[in-house]
């Protein structure tokens, strides 16, 4: 459906990634944001807190990130689209209630503008070290969706996609920006409302008597009722049955948790997104995401100048992982090179999917800056040489 025009700032703008992300959220219909100040993400909520009063939205600065995430889950259960924004240390605090959102099947968006870690790390400088935490950070088994923009324009576009995916699959969606994209200012074109697709919160049309909050009837995603409409439903972070009532049993655990995984994994082909450049005849493929994809393009140019046939696979959705595509590519290419601003996180997934069919080379960077393209190029050239 079309968005509420009040949230859509149509036009060509010169925006940084943080502001563009905030605009994307408002265009997607987000009308509740709870957050706690943390560099380098704060500009997102600064933008929103300035614009929300004119469009019926509420921003509240909570006492910490635990509270921010809890408030977002609460607000989402009123049918209001909700988001929180943070960086590494705050992301760690949010994990508890991200797990609650996953367990209660709550549509919401969590923005993490990544900085160098661990701990307080590099507050004002870039990192990509939270990509595994986005997937595994809360305890127990669950699935999420995570996206990584490479530019302010994508920060806008993909934030809308993040909301849409959260609505479609009733899951918390991690929007994994990085400090470079967050603080980089570029042209951002915001289309007319008529050109934007927004997935609305679909409310059940069942009567309160026949409604059960976690009944799926052969589908994978239950229908949603919001607080205050007379359904008088119950929901809990405990293992629960179709009625949302806690049941402490092996059978209920299996039914309850496996569906949280299946609803994402079974639909991975619909969710997974990536972009390929020069893959057709490539002997080496660079697999990367976020700001590092832009650095990798420079490295690819350098390696091509040396005669290496190299292409780029840029991951847009990192969770669920582009498993099928990596597996297929591993059969046809000579090597994969995986630069990322951490000591080797998503490269583990690439290795797993490649399954030994081709060498996988990790190009690490501890954070605080981006890779030197020459360093990535050297790895590409070495990988190409070992191929021939």
């Amino acid at each position, binding site marked *: *459906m079309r968005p*509420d025009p*009040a*949230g859509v700032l149509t036009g060509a703008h010169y925006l940084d990634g943080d502001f563009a992300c905030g605009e994307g959220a408002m265009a997607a*219909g987000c*009308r*509740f944001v*709870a957050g706690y100040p943390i560099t380098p993400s704060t500009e997102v909520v600064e933008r929103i807190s300035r614009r929300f*009063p*004119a*469009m*019926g*939205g*509420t921003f*509240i600065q*909570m*006492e*910490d990130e*635990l*509270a*921010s995430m*809890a*408030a*977002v*889950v*609460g*607000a*989402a*259960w*009123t*049918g*209001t*689209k*909700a988001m929180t924004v943070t960086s590494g240390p705050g992301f760690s605090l949010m994990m*508890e*209630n991200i*797990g*609650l959102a996953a367990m209660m099947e709550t549509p919401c968006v969590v923005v993490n503008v990544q900085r160098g870690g661990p701990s307080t790390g590099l507050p004002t400088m870039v990192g990509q070290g939270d990509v595994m935490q986005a997937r595994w950070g809360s305890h127990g088994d669950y699935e999420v969706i995570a996206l990584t923009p490479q530019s302010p324009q994508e920060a806008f576009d993909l934030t809308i996609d993040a909301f849409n995916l959260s609505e479609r699959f009733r899951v918390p969606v991690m929007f994994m920006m990085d400090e470079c994209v967050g603080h980089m200012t570029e042209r951002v074109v915001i289309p007319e409302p008529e050109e934007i697709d927004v997935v*609305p*919160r679909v409310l059940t049309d069942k009567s309160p008597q026949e409604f059960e909050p976690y009944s799926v009837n052969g589908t994978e995603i239950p229908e949603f009722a*919001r*607080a*205050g*409409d*007379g*359904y*008088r*439903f*119950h*929901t*809990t*972070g*405990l293992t629960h049955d179709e009625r949302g*009532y*806690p049941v402490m049993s092996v059978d209920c655990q299996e039914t309850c948790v496996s569906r949280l995984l299946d609803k994402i994994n079974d639909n991975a082909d619909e969710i997974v997104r990536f972009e390929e450049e020069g893959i057709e005849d490539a002997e080496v493929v660079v697999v990367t995401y976020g700001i590092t994809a832009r650095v990798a393009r420079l490295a690819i140019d350098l390696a091509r100048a040396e005669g290496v046939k190299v292409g780029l696979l840029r991951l847009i959705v990192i969770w669920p992982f582009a498993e099928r595509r990596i597996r297929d590519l591993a059969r046809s290419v000579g090597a994969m090179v995986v630069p990322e601003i951490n000591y080797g996180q998503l490269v583990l997934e690439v290795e797993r999917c490649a399954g030994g069919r081709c060498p996988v080379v990790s190009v690490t960077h501890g954070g605080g800056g981006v890779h030197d393209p020459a360093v990535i190029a050297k790895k590409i050239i070495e990988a190409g040489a070992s191929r021939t």
Partner: protein
Amino acid sequence: MSVDTVGTRTDFPAEPPEHPTAPYLRMERIPHVWCPGCGIGTVVQCFATALERSGVDLDKASVVSGIGCSGRAAGYLKLDGFHATHGRAIPFATGLKLGRPELLVTVFSGDGDLSGIGGNHFIHAARRNMDLLVILINNFIYGMTGGQNAPTTPLTAKSSTMPFGNFEPPFNLPHLAASCGAPYVARWTCLHIRRLTWTLEEAIQRKGFRLVEVVAPCPPLYSRLNKLGTGLDGMSFYHDNAVIKHGADTRDLGIDFQESIVCGKFVDEEKPTFSELMDTHYDRVLGDKYVPMAPEGGWLHE
């Protein structure tokens, strides 16, 4: 009535009449998890009665609990019920209230949940005057996990993690809430069922951050570890040692081990809530440009 006459009655109805509180409970979930002699069920009953008397639209009433024995209340009340994470009932409820301002949102949880792990949220919600009714059951101990020391355990009382007696000074919860600006603060024990019900009925009609603390016995843990007898002994203790002092200075409301428990309504004043402050402020500074969130929620659609 003698035993004999009870035994010879023949006019029992085929089906026992429905319990008056049944319409407010998820009867399919009864029996509940609470132990014999526990006070939490009594408070649920008082709250249900208060809801009935207040005449509020139950479809617009939500209850949020954290984790722990009292945290199970949201699962038994037949309202929109949210069983959130440990300590986070208040911020979860804050999101519910702000996301759909027309809701009556009640937080029903325990002393460990709300004043221990959730203590930071408690004081900030009171400071903001968030429009929440907070029913806090204080049984002086972490019950669900087996009787560990709580931020409310009286000095010298024993718990499983203070086996030689507690040496940490406890919170005085009414004073904590009042000093953060809460406009409505009361305390009863679960012996005071009529007074508690009146207070809850009144608190439902008030707005802003309303704290109703209810002291309740925990026979299998707090009472057992401290050799205080059964639940009934706990009630007898409240009967003999509860002192009703409406309007008491909240600084004087600390609870010492097996000493008097001051009960009553200590604060009842009118103060603008978070949402009222926000609306008033934005109306003043933004004028016609200000669009408040709709009572039924933000940007709703078919």
